[in-house]
């Protein structure tokens, strides 16, 4: 006869309310982990989507995401001539705020040369850019549809295609423009800054014909590290591999936020542990008389331990499952992306099991110490 089950069944409502409370808590923990993963995924998404093996940026910077970088567009020609380079592209990046349907919309403008590297990875609807002016491809998260018009700077753009997985490390959805349009936009939006750049003139040969970075893919048997070294020897450029760019993004761009969320998640797990321990202890204390009676009628310790531990585990796992279900179903309502990974879910389930077992120790200890004579008092 499974006493844990009988007790739960008899107090089903109360047990489920407890599980539900716990599920909210564990749901928040799960959401926190999802936010943490989402932050990292957002940070890396663009680099993953662009999928370049080599990033070439302005010397002395760790651009184009962590710091701003400006190099001449024709750098791509020099890069293309390096042995082992298969294809190249020149790209610009810029955050911009505009309006759509009367609502503020933050966009991440990516300028690239159609036909070269740097464009959207997939076109989910419509078509890619062809080189004609004032056309754009947008990430579906912008909420814009094909045929929509959007005002950027002095010009209106027509959406001709949509894509996915293109979002800046800050979570702004991307809008792809042709490099010429993007450069014009940059020039329109910050004429004074551009003028200063022009005055400085060091790297910038033709002041408006600059890009944020030049990207390249290498042939399978080429050594990316050697290519990076080659470019580093050039006077005005810094280079890094895709992996290094990823490290810069996670470590410097989102590092603080990452630590913040990581720490908060740890605190939440700790709080959950304490609450689970309290619930289990209360559950045990509520049954102290029954436990004493079990001892009176001769039940061995393992029956009493089973009663407590099984209920603790059931509560933890049901609470976890409900919490998981809850977050899974509402994940799309979060303003920023939640990334719910099965492994994270499994790990948290493991943590919950461990917490339940550890929390049971106190309850079990109390239960085993109970004097059976305690059940005799009227």
């Amino acid at each position: 006869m499974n006493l844990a089950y009988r007790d739960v069944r008899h107090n089903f409502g109360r047990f489920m309310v407890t599980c539900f409370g716990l599920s909210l808590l564990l749901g928040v923990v799960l959401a926190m982990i999802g936010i943490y993963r989402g932050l990292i995924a957002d940070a890396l998404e663009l680099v993953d989507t662009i999928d370049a093996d080599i990033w070439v940026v302005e010397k002395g910077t760790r651009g184009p995401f962590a710091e701003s970088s400006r190099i001449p567009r024709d750098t791509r020609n020099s890069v293309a001539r390096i042995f082992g380079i298969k294809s190249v592209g020149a790209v610009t990046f810029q955050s911009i705020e505009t309006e759509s349907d009367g609502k503020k919309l933050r966009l991440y403008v990516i300028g690239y040369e159609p036909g070269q590297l740097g464009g959207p990875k997939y076109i989910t609807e419509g078509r890619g850019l062809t080189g004609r002016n004032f056309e754009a491809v947008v990430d579906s998260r912008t909420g814009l549809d094909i045929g929509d018009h959007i005002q950027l700077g002095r010009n209106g753009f027509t959406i001709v295609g949509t894509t996915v997985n293109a979002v800046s490390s800050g979570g702004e959805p991307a809008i792809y423009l042709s490099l010429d349009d993007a450069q014009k936009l940059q020039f329109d939006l910050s004429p004074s800054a551009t003028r200063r750049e022009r005055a400085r003139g060091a790297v910038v040969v033709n002041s408006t014909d600059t890009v944020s970075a030049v990207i390249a893919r290498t042939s399978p048997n080429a050594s990316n590290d050697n290519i990076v070294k080659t470019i580093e020897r050039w006077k005005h450029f810094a280079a890094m591999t895709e992996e290094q760019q990823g490290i810069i993004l996670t470590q410097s761009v989102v590092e603080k936020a990452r630590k913040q969320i990581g720490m908060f998640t740890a605190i939440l797990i700790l709080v959950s542990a304490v609450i689970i321990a309290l619930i289990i202890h209360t559950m045990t204390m509520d049954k102290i008389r029954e436990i004493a009676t079990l001892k009176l009628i001769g039940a061995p310790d393992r029956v009493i331990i089973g009663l407590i531990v099984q209920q603790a585990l059931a509560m933890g796992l049901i609470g976890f499952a409900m919490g998981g279900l809850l977050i899974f179903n509402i994940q799309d309502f979060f303003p920023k992306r939640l990334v719910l990974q099965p492994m994270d879910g499994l790990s948290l389930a493991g943590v919950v099991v461990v917490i339940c077992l550890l929390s049971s120790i106190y309850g079990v200890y109390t239960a085993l110490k109970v004097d059976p004579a305690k059940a005799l008092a009227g």
Partner: protein
Amino acid sequence: MTENKKPLISIKNLSKHFGEGETRVDALRNINLDIFPEQVIGLLGPSGSGKSTLLNVIGCILEPTRGQIELDGELVYNDRWLRSDLRGLRLEKVGFIFQAHNLMPFLSSMDNVAVVLDLAGYSASAARTRAGELLEYLEVGNRVEAFPGSLSGGEAQRVAIARALANRPRIVLADEPTAALDSERAGIVMDLLRKVAIDQQAAVIVVTHDEKIYDRFDQIFHLRDGILSQT
């Protein structure tokens, strides 16, 4: 007739006191008592005289201060417990009917009885059959699926009696088993205890204030301020 058998319960020079100094209560003073198979014994005495204490000590629930307890030929206490697995002993040999019946609130009447059999290793169906018979006999067969919270005092008491007797104990200790029962039901309970004494060669001790059952005992003992005497 009983004298040529070995006693099932044998108690020698047993004392129990609570507290020390000013607050010391001598609940049992130098008790000697032998109870044989088939005997149904009445234990009477004013409130606070030590009746429950004596039952609890015999049932190995409470540790005495000094003396000897022998149950079914096994010396279990000699100024200290000689057996570590007292719960196993209780499960196997002792049926305890508690003053406050102590049913599990989350188990039905049936399961409250069956749980003892389950612990004793009966199969689920054998446990239910045995529990059902006892409950039927005690006239609570119509309440087998009810939970203790919905039982009347007398019904709960009879379920507790069924639980105590389920595993066919050879030592039955009953603390006021008929307190909540009318005389007819009290008679049924006493008949059952008598039947158990004979069928299982058991020794039965009944603590009671219930005058209507005084004539059901083979012997009656009195406790007064922890001192035992026989009438």
